[in-house]
């Protein structure tokens, strides 16, 4: 797959001296859903703002759909739709007029059929003649998405799309994102709701302190870095881990009634067979067992922590 966005050597130092981005390289593939994860202040919004033209880079280049974002900004920006983090909308405009305005602003001829389709997809059609200030927060969020989609962008940026959004809208939004991807739109979202990245993204990038510290297929990332835990519910409580089991990475939980074994899924041998044998030999019996995989959140936290 070819890159639809190529960021190379991108740095940003604000007037205050704060280095928001430190020589970032990043490629977004055409047609993928890319999740950019990072703690607050990591540089997520700065990166998006530079690509979309809201912030001037200090150095480095960005190509969007093959066009340099500063030399050929018209072509680059025409390809991009941006849904900002904050609910920044007009107040007195109607939904219909503000969405039509966005389409014109991005240089597209009027197309009422397309605007109607976008509004219907976002359940805004009934509100088309309502002034924006009379809408709820969730509805305003939908309006911002409609504005970004009004000019049929090939790249869509969603900056913290589900911050403060109710369950219904969140589900609508993910349905819409999947549909857009089927139509060939590339979607880049930032989030700190890690389960969202886990559920939606094809690839995940982790940014921390202005540096991209990891870009990986989501499934690969979870496979490579994911530690699994085997929890054994014991029939009899243990006061300490027996000597015979000292070779295994074990810990006791629930007052000694549970034995937890951590293992690495990427290791050649997980050691489960050996552990179970050793348990049988030591005469430890168990009622139940379960395994759990560490979430992207655990991975993320450990990545960011190991850096600081």
């Amino acid at each position: 797959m070819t890159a639809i966005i190529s960021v190379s050597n991108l740095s940003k130092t604000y007037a205050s001296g704060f280095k928001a981005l430190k020589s970032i390289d990043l490629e977004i593939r055409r047609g993928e859903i890319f999740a950019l994860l990072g703690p607050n202040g990591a540089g997520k919004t700065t990166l998006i703002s530079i690509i979309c033209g809201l912030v001037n880079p200090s150095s480095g280049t960005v190509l969007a759909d093959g066009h340099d974002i500063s030399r050929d900004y018209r072509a680059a920006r025409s390809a991009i739709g941006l849904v900002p983090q904050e609910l920044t909308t007009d107040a007195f405009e109607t939904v219909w007029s503000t969405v039509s305005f966005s389409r014109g602003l991005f240089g597209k001829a009027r197309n009422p059929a397309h605007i109607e389709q976008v509004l219907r997809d976002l359940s805004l059609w009934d509100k088309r003649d309502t002034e924006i200030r009379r809408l709820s927060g969730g509805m305003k969020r939908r309006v911002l998405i409609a504005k970004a989609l009004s000019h049929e962008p090939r790249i869509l940026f969603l900056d913290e799309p589900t911050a403060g959004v109710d369950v219904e809208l969140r589900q609508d939004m993910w349905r819409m994102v999947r549909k857009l991807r089927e139509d060939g739109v590339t979607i880049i979202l930032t989030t700190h709701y890690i389960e969202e990245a886990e559920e939606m993204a094809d690839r995940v990038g982790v940014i921390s302190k202005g540096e991209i510290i990891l870009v990986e297929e989501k499934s690969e990332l979870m496979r490579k870095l994911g530690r699994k835990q085997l929890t054994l519910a014991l029939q009899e409580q243990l006061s300490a881990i027996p000597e015979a089991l000292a070779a295994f990475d074990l810990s006791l939980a629930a007052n000694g009634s549970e034995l937890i074994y951590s293992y690495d899924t990427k290791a050649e041998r997980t050691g489960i067979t050996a552990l179970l044998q050793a348990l049988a030999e030591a005469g430890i019996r168990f009622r139940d067992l379960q395994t759990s995989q560490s979430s992207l959140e655990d991975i993320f936290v450990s990545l960011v922590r190991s850096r600081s």
Partner: protein
Amino acid sequence: MSQRSTGMGLINWHAIVAIYRFEMARTWRTPMQSILSPVISTSLYFVVFGAAIGSRMQSIDGVPYGAFIVPGLIMLSLLTQSIANASFAIYFPKFTGTIYELLSAPVAWWEAVAAYVGAAATKSIILGLIILATATLFVPLRIEHPVFMLLFLVLTATTFSLFGFIIGIWADGFEKLQVVPLLIVTPLAFLGGSFYSIEMLPPFWRVVTLFNPVVYLISGFRWSFYGVADVGVAVSLGMTMVFLAACIGAVAWIFRTGYRLKN
């Protein structure tokens, strides 16, 4: 530049039209504030200065006082309204944050300026013509050079809309938005010969007044009505052009550097 692939051509006309229509729609939503209030305040000037005081004043350069002040009053409204319209138009999106959309759009700075300033200037020109029509109800008017009258109207509205646009970008609070019009433009406009000929001033103040750019606007505009002027009409036109060029230069610099718009 492969701009043709966007189907946009060299000028993003759709964007200019979209911004222009958006701004004009804003005016018609608030007709009381946009149209009625300037008309009422101008009518009050006519009642006070034209009818009440003017009837006891000598005519100036052969023009009855009530008619003499008409061009100055129109200019006064044109200046203040152009600045107010344009400064608010660009300040408000900055204030609410909706400017993100303009900054992320494939719009050249001069296209945005053309649309915002064009809309602000259109509004104040319409207002100027409404005030002119109102004036005919109070005083007999004649316009000797209608083409020049329109030219001065358009140039002044454009120049001061640009000036307002700059103020709107510079301002980072509502106070700053008000302070330049209130402390600089209004005094300059009142002292620019709206209500008197600068020939009526003592020689020293006459010279001081020549440093006031508004003098040239009002003088030229009044010449287009009555064929009499405080300064030559060519000088008036020249000074207007100089101020227009200065404003265009300042706006170009602002957008090229991203001053107060982008980090």
